[in-house]
């Protein structure tokens, strides 16, 4: 009788969930405060120039963007011959400040890619004091693509342009 009563008592006892709840609430709060993945991050793959073995072909097509302090210069070359050379000066932004014309740059990149058999590589010559923000927006502009279309220039190589 006594054992059955004891067994019934045990069954009837509720689990004390309060300490468990304490831990869970603290853990959730801690993670919510610490976690930053709600700001979803992305990455831009890039490279820097490497030493060439000097075997590049003379008639090879190459595309580059010179990001100068006041303009973009979009250049397509074939060996020593310049095929496209367009200068895109900064335009007035929504706040009145001068910003780089990324839309025009995208148009130029698209038309060059349509006209010439260019690969995914592009050289970005950055003026030394151009901000990282502008570097990212330039890389975005030349890599941007419409859904369903082939990628534009997704392999940018960064270089520094002194004195501009």
């Amino acid at each position, binding site marked *: 009788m006594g054992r059955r009563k004891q067994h019934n008592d045990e069954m009837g006892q509720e689990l004390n*969930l309060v300490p*468990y*709840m304490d831990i*869970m*609430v603290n*853990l*959730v709060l801690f*993670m*919510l405060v*610490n*976690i*930053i*993945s*709600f*700001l*979803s*991050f*992305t*990455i*831009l*793959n*890039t*490279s*820097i120039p490497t030493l060439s073995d000097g075997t590049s072909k003379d008639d090879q097509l190459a595309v580059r963007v010179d*990001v100068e302090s006041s303009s973009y210069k979009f250049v397509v070359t074939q060996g020593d011959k310049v095929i496209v050379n367009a200068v895109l000066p900064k335009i007035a932004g929504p706040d009145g400040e001068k910003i780089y014309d990324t839309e025009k740059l995208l148009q130029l990149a698209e038309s060059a890619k349509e006209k010439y058999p260019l690969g995914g590589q592009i050289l970005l010559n*950055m*003026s*030394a*004091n*151009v*901000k*990282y*923000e502008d*570097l*990212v*927006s330039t*890389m*975005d502009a030349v*890599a*941007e693509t419409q859904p369903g279309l082939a990628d534009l220039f997704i392999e940018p190589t*960064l*270089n*520094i342009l*002194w004195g501009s």
Partner: protein
Amino acid sequence: MSQQSHPNSSSELEQYVARKKRKEKRAKRKRSNDVVAKEINLVAMMDVLTILLIFLLKSYSVSALSIPVGGTISIPLSKQTINPKEAVKLTITSIKGSTPGVIAVDEEAIVELTPEFLAQYQTRLQKGDYTIKEVKLALEKKKRLIKAMASIVDDVVFDGKIMVIADKETPSWLILSVLGTSAEAEFTQYQLAAVRKSQ
């Protein structure tokens, strides 16, 4: 009424006692039901908390990006949709704040970006020397650590990946300098971190 409240015969008394007992039992049962109803049902809350915790733990482990060093940093926006991959993190905090920014490798601040330091290295870069000595040493140390781990643990591989998390005001020459220094320490797979622009 008066008979009920003051029973006279013994049978009436028995009935009265039985009624009273029934009443008491009913009242007791009602009281215990009330107590049960007043208790909060924690099970539903536990369910929610557990699911939330699992979601957060998963997000925490998936996110390869965290900015552990002090100092202000404002990361630029990008339209790219590539997910960050696990890599050694090289952080450059704002050089425009009241306190000088820092270059940090993972969680360790390596160099303080004072105006003198910036002027000195900009001049050196102009002459073709892009190596930031302190950063190179820290990265080489990191490389040795990863390679030592790779020799013990099968899953760890040294793939030369480095993620640059820089403030949006950082000048390009400093970014290039840092990338060049990383290349010298055999970190040649560069990832520039940005905040994904909502479409």
